[in-house]
């Protein structure tokens, strides 16, 4: 009989252990995409700026690894990451953008103000491609290898220390 009286204390100790552990962990709200390691889902998007180029999933399977940057002109962290995207481009990364819920004139203004590291930008008004590749916010950056496979996902804006990581991931993807 008496061992049963210890059960509540044991359960409670388990809770305290879990709570204490979680208190020491940094709280992140990151939802990782399950599509990493899988083929880029099929999509075709119209250009996000006038006289720009449209993009499609087929473009990625041409042997060149690329960065796929999900962003928007209305997103404040995207301004913060713009210089680092440009640096990535200068280091030889090819960057394709997808603008989420954005207007061509706003995109053009953003590019004029903060620079344009993109080879092409697609326009995703319904967050369709964003949902297809399991991205849960802006900005996010995916590494796509030359066969059109998603290799890596970076969540949040790109900080200076992320640039070498992304370059390394690109290199691993065959650049």
């Amino acid at each position, binding site marked *: 009989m008496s061992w049963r*009286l210890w059960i*509540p*204390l044991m359960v*409670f100790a388990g*809770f*305290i252990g*879990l*709570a*204490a552990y*979680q208190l020491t962990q940094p709280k992140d709200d990151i939802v990782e995409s399950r599509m990493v390691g899988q083929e880029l889902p099929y999509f075709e998007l119209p250009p996000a700026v006038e006289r720009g180029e449209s993009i499609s999933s087929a473009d990625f399977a041409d042997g060149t690894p690329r960065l796929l940057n999900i962003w928007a002109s209305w997103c404040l962290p995207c301004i913060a990451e713009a210089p680092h995207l440009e640096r990535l481009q200068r280091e030889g990364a090819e960057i394709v953008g997808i603008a989420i819920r954005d207007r061509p004139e706003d995109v053009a203004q953003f590019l004029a103000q903060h620079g344009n590291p993109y080879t092409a930008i697609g326009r995703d008004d319904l967050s369709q491609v964003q949902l297809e590749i399991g991205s849960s916010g802006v900005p996010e950056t995916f590494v796509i290898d030359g066969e059109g496979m998603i290799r890596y996902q970076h969540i949040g804006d790109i900080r200076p220390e992320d640039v070498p990581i992304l370059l390394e991931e690109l290199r691993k993807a065959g650049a």
Partner: protein
Amino acid sequence: MIAELGLAALWLAAALAALQTVAGFLSVRAGQGAEIAALIRPASMMQGLLVAFSFAMLLWLFAITDLSVKLVAANSHVDKPLIYKLSGTWGNHEGSMLLWVTVMAAAGALIAAVEHRLPERTMYATLGAQGLVALGFYGFLLLSSNPFERLPVPALQGMGLNPLLQDIGLALHPPTLYFGYVGLSVAFSFAVGALLTRSVTPDFARAMRPWVLGAWVFLTLGITAGSYWAYYELGWGGWWFWDPVENASLMPWLAATALLHSASVLASRDALRTWTIMLGVVAFSMSMIGTFLVRSGILTSVHAFAVDPERGTFILVLLTLYIGGALLLFALRANTISEGKRFSVTSREGALVFNNVMLSAILAIVLLGTLYPLLTEAFNVRVSVGPPYFNPVGAIFFMPMLLVMGVGPLLRWREDRPDRIRSELALFAALIIAAIVLLSLLVEIALLPLLGLAMGLGLAVASFMPLRSRQLGRIPAATWGMVLAHFGITVALIGMASESAFSEEELVALSAGESATVGPWTVTLEAVEPVAGPNWTAIQGRLSARYGDSEPVVLAPQARSFWAPPQQTTESALSTRWNGQLYAVIGDPAGEGRFQLRLWWKPFVTLIWYGGVVIALGGVLALIGHVLNDLRRRHRERRLDEQRSEEEALGILSGEERL
């Protein structure tokens, strides 16, 4: 100066709590007649006065908006209306903790002043435990959350003018829940006191019961108000989301409900001793775990609140000490406490045990579902647990419990024959079965709402059956309270089931002059106009809504944009009838002069909250009944004592005569 006075009073109160604790536990060791025991009750009462004074000082600081105090500067604003300045006192972490210890110390003072039923040693242990719990919270306040901290340079205006918090419901909602939490802390102290002195008696249950009932009434009201607030304020017509923050307030309620029922078995029948003690500990631990989950920010729901890991750590340490200590004591002591009187399955006690076990199981499921995402996160896997889990899994235990709730009060204590209440059982079963058959034939309805409605209809009758063939005037208030509380559960259940089964939703884009129908309502968008408030602008829709052929009513939902801080809120507009509510929300422009409207017709949805109020009312009646009973009993005992001493005096005289 005011702030310093408040702080000094708080330190003094903390010192008295320490004295109360030490004196309490020393007296328990020394046994009856220890001299130090004389200190305990005065220390407890004085402590109550001092904290009340300290809290009054903080109220005063908020009332005059003393901007040299950090807490006031951070949470108030010179231009706030007075009522919201005052409610700002507890609308923040430090102030709410001060309110918490104030209520706790006041409760301690009250027990010290009026409770003389229990053996003195048990009272020393109880007050000692109460002092120890209070001491931890004083430490928390004084060491890491000092509400009276001064700013080196006074602020000019003050920061806080959060428009969402300037709502009368929200001003009163948090203290309501606090009163509930703190009431459970008193039950906890009683349980620890009884465990320490091994005196788990019906008197102990009677002493504890009013506190549990009071706490339970406050929790019921707090949850009901919170649910209604979420319903009209969040703008999507939902009234319960199984959000971790909501679960944190539901869990103490479930535990308190179980405790209430097992305490009444102990009080009337001297059975379920260890179980009642266990629930006393569990109920308070749920209050503390809830507070911890909400303040520490370890659950996703609360990440946005200005949480502080230090606070979380502090609460966790207190939680470990008190609850861990009490559970350890329980494990060591409980087997020396006998089970109490036995009873048969078909008895009032049997039904109450069933109810207790079911409530505990529901509590376990809510706790599991709330903590599970936290557990998997430790292994880097993120999962969500929501309504599709809680509703059916909870129902597995809730539905059988409801059946027993309908029958249990009809049974006699100790032992009863089911065939004695054959006709009542038959009526109850017939009602439920008839409702199930009729409803499933007449309407298309999912399983859970169907069961909910059928049970609700059956129980609505069954909950009044305990009154049958009795003279209504001679039924004790406590029985009326039980009947009313059970009926309240029924009312709320019907509301929930009906909302879930019969709600109709209509999303439309209308331009001025166009109409839409939702359920029996025809809603016409008359106009959309801009309106401005003190710190917001809004577009306001003027809707005329007509129920069937009756006179139209005007509704004015708004979509507000605040500019400091910039945020958007929706102000829903409601039209309430006896048989339900029309719920209207205006959204964004949809192009070509049209506006998005969201309309819901929710039949009998208001029963959910009326039910909550009826439950609380039942609790109040039961509380009054028990307190009156105790007073009467005390009076009778005093009369008996007087009689006895008179007789003895007479006896002595007559003896002398005989000599």
